[in-house]
């Protein structure tokens, strides 16, 4: 229930200027370079930025793949930029930079901001019937704080950050430990701090908005699963992120051997704490350290954020896919409440499983057992969700459009990612496959196979709301087809590489006899990756061209139920012409009582006056 004292039916924005004239379909992009506080503009800003970053991260990944398929051979196209000094050949320290920054860009600049930043921003007010976010200026800042992060990550690429995205000390804590542990690592830490500010501002905003600004009638259990997912994600983010930020500052202090002149008054000797540095290390020409720190402390702090972050990178996609699947199956979501509870369970358990990243780290082995049980049990809510998605499609009249295809791919590939997780959750088995390509396969199935396919579907699904036009189905299907094949061709064989014992982050695995015969398989994977990489250009082209030449559509092209579809496309400033009133949940597709000839029943459609309105809430599910 909304606590905002609007009179239902009264204009939400008396001075709304967007109504009455034909709407400018490009209104949202026209404000792209502005400090707009409109959540829709900010959402589009995030979306376009992350799509560009997807290409950057993809290019870095192709560099990695090139080296694995054709070790020490000159790389075409990118080689000239990445490794001009070596004649296009990837040096080992460049290779470490490539996988470090691939992961960093994809996680911090693509997946987290595209889910929470782009879709969270765009959808939350529209789906709950609010005119904007609770704190519009904070929202604007959360986007613009991304840019310093992008700048410093760019510097990290330039200087060659090379400690992996996990930045384990002492490699990351001692500037002398590796060529990329100097300025590059400092830039990396600064950038992570900025992106953390950005996420935190978003997360506070989402929680406040969802709690306080729901339209009349929008009870908690009438919220679309997308909103539940965004809400739970925001909570995860708000509780986990401060730990990473604190750990980042601790590492910065560890690294401060000398302060710049204007800060020397603090201590001419520099700060140089030793949170993560034990005594007695002999690292190249590094001066001896006082020591007393513990490298494992960083791992605990880092994973205390970064494991929940895995769910931050997944839950919103789960929510959006639930909404899209229900719409394209023309069926209510199967088991709405179990879906909500399982997301909450994933989030809750997500806080007590971080140790499964550290089974071989040398922490107390009894902890390994505890973390194994909690980790294996987190598969349970994930399994429940999969069953419910299949249940949602079961008996539906399915639309096989691009949205649906991407959502089915999400479910199909998430099954693989979920099941492969069980191998690594089992500690004894993890002893062997830890830090091999098995884990690389696993997290790409979850983060790409699930999340990114969900995002591809969501882009196609909500594009009409952003620009009043639909994206091309033909191009969308080609993009899906090539990406799906390229994805499986690239990542499925990685399971086998993992079983064959190929360690990750190796610039040249074939140096080791027992891995030599895996070269042809790696070449096949690289070719698949190149196909997949170039397929993304179809998406970009489809997105940009559809803004101008896409088929014009009405406000509700998918015949969906959600509140956002009762707003104009694109919604004007203030979103709704009048405060919407919510009469039912968002999943009443094919409802027997739905208005004549419709297989959907929008949340804002008033109940029939003739027949006594049956309350179709989800409480009986």
């Amino acid at each position, binding site marked *: 229930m909304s606590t905002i004292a609007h009179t239902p039916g009264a204009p939400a924005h008396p001075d709304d200027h967007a109504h009455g004239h034909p709407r400018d379909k490009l209104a949202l992009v026209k404000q792209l370079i502005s400090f707009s506080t409109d959540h829709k503009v900010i959402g589009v800003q995030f979306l376009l930025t992350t799509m560009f970053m997807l290409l950057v991260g993809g290019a870095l990944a192709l560099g990695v793949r090139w080296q694995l398929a054709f070790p020490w051979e000159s790389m075409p196209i990118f080689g000239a930029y990445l490794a001009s000094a070596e004649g296009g050949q990837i040096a080992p320290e460049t290779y470490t930079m490539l996988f470090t920054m691939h992961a960093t860009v994809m996680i911090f600049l693509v997946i987290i901001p595209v889910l929470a930043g782009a879709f969270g921003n765009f959808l939350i007010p529209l789906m709950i019937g609010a005119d904007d976010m609770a704190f519009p200026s904070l929202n604007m800042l959360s986007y613009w704080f991304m840019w310093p992060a992008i700048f410093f990550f760019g510097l990290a690429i330039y200087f060659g950050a090379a400690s992996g995205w996990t930045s384990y000390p002492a490699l990351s804590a001692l500037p002398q*430990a590796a060529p990329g542990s100097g300025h590059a690592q400092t830039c990396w830490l600064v950038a992570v701090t900025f992106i953390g500010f950005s996420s935190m501002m978003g997360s506070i905003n989402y929680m406040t908005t969802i709690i306080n600004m729901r339209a009349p009638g929008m009870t908690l259990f009438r919220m679309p699963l997308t909103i539940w997912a965004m809400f739970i994600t925001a909570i995860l983010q708000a509780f986990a992120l401060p730990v990473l930020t604190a750990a980042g500052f601790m590492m910065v202090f560890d690294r401060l051997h000398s302060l710049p002149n204007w800060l020397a008054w603090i201590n001419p000797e520099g700060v140089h704490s030793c949170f993560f540095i034990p005594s007695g290390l002999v690292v190249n020409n590094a001066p001896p350290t006082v020591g007393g720190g513990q490298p494992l402390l960083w791992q605990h702090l880092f994973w205390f954020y970064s494991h929940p972050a895995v769910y931050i990178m997944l839950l919103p996609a789960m929510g959006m896919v639930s909404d899209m699947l229900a719409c394209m199956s023309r069926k209510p979501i199967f088991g709405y409440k179990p879906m909500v509870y399982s997301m909450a369970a994933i989030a809750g358990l997500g806080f007590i499983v971080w140790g499964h990243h550290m089974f071989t780290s040398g922490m107390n082995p009894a902890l390994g057992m505890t973390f194994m049980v909690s980790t294996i049990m987190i598969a349970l809510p994930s399994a429940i969700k999969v069953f419910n998605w299949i249940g949602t499609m079961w008996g539906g009249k399915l639309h096989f459009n691009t949205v649906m295809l991407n959502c089915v791919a999400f479910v199909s590939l998430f099954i693989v990612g979920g099941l492969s997780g069980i191998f690594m959750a089992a500690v004894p088995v993890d*002893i062997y496959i830890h830090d091999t390509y098995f884990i690389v396969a696993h997290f790409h199935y979850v983060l790409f196979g699930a999340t990114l396919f969900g995002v591809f579907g969501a882009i196609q699904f909500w594009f009409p709301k952003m620009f009043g036009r639909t994206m091309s189905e033909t191009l969308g299907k080609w993009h899906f087809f090539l990406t799906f094949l390229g994805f499986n061709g690239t990542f499925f064989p990685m399971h086998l590489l993992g079983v064959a014992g190929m360690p990750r982050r190796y610039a040249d695995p074939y140096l080791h006899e027992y891995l030599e015969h895996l070269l042809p398989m790696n070449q096949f994977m690289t070719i698949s990756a190149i196909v997949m990489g170039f397929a993304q250009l179809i998406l970009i082209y489809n997105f940009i061209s559809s803004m101008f030449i896409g088929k014009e559509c009405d406000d509700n092209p998918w015949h969906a139920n959600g509140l956002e579809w009762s707003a104009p496309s694109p919604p004007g400033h203030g979103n709704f012409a009048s405060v919407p009133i919510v009469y039912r949940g968002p999943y009443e597709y094919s409802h027997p009582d739905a208005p004549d000839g419709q297989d959907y029943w929008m949340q804002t459609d008033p109940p029939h006056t003739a027949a006594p309105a049956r309350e179709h809430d*989800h409480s009986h599910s």
Partner: protein
Amino acid sequence: MNRFWVVFFIFWPIVAIVLCAIAPSMNWWFPGTTGPTHGEAASPLGQRIDDLFYMILVITAIVFILTQAALGFALWTGANRRNDESAKSWFSHGSHNLEVMWTIVPAGVLLFIALYQMDVWAEYRIKDNFPRERMEAVLTRLGIDFIDESQLTADGQPVRRVALAEVTARQFEWRIRYPGFDADGNLLPLLPDPQPTDLYSVNDLHLPVGAPVMIQLRSSDVQHSFFLPELRIKQDAVPGLVIPVWFEANASNEYTLLCAELCGWGHYKMKAQFVAEPEEEFLEYLHNLHAEQNDDAFLDHLLRLQTDAGEDEGLAFQEFLDQLEVDHNLAAFRNYVRDRRDEMTAEEFTTYVGGLDAETAAEEFNAILQQSSAETADAEESAADAATEEVLEE
């Protein structure tokens, strides 16, 4: 077109299953699958890990097939319904009974998997569950007096020094320290701190076969990970920690040892071998190390040759050697002469040594020493530059 997509989604899980089924015959499976070991783990613990792996594989394969089949069925019927104008979607918000069922059944299976893994993990990592008796039996057979009465544990028992080697990872190699022999030729226990009697090797770990043996794992710079793929053993080497790791190779062989935790640009080339060999051969290996590192038989030989040539020269040569010892250059000189020996036949070497007087030896050696120290300084100037060059040379 709808049915095309249904087939598309049914098709890929089938390809995935076929790929996994043929993987062992294509050697895309555990190391050495097409070799004489058929990919079996080379250690009893590793075999139990593999058994657990296969157990999970069977369970997940069943779940994979069932869920993908259910998905395929839902898609197929859904596509048919789409092609039929009059068909309608099934209006349902879910089923309480189904939800309960598919919560309880997977929960039971998952809990079973979790609890079933505990024993192997406990045996591998929990100190109280280490196979201590069998480890100590090896030490007894090797003649090591491993019970250290001079130090007591917290509960008043004498400390038992069970480790046979200390493995120290550093960028980018494995340094190994073995216990040495006492004056009577008995093998000593490995103490936590380096002893003058200790023996050293690099990237070459030898240990007895057929019984559990323990190493102490440490890192002298950044984090590394001790990985024996054929034995399914992995343990991170963490700066500041000394971590006991035990394993048991069940066949005499040379196994791969490599690093599994990112440790810098040269991570991929921390290549070493682990040689599992019978206890006699292990002792012989240690004796050889001892001979190389301590035994001056070769220098004695050199000295005798010199003495034979004339008493004065012999004395001068002895002085030269003493000076080397003071300058800590004796080992380098040994290497220098050993290199010479490797270049020549036995006869040529004898002639060479015979013709070597103290003065020429000192001159020649000092020149080489200077050259090599200059090289070392260059090399240390920038590890990164050197690395780049090396790659380019390749």
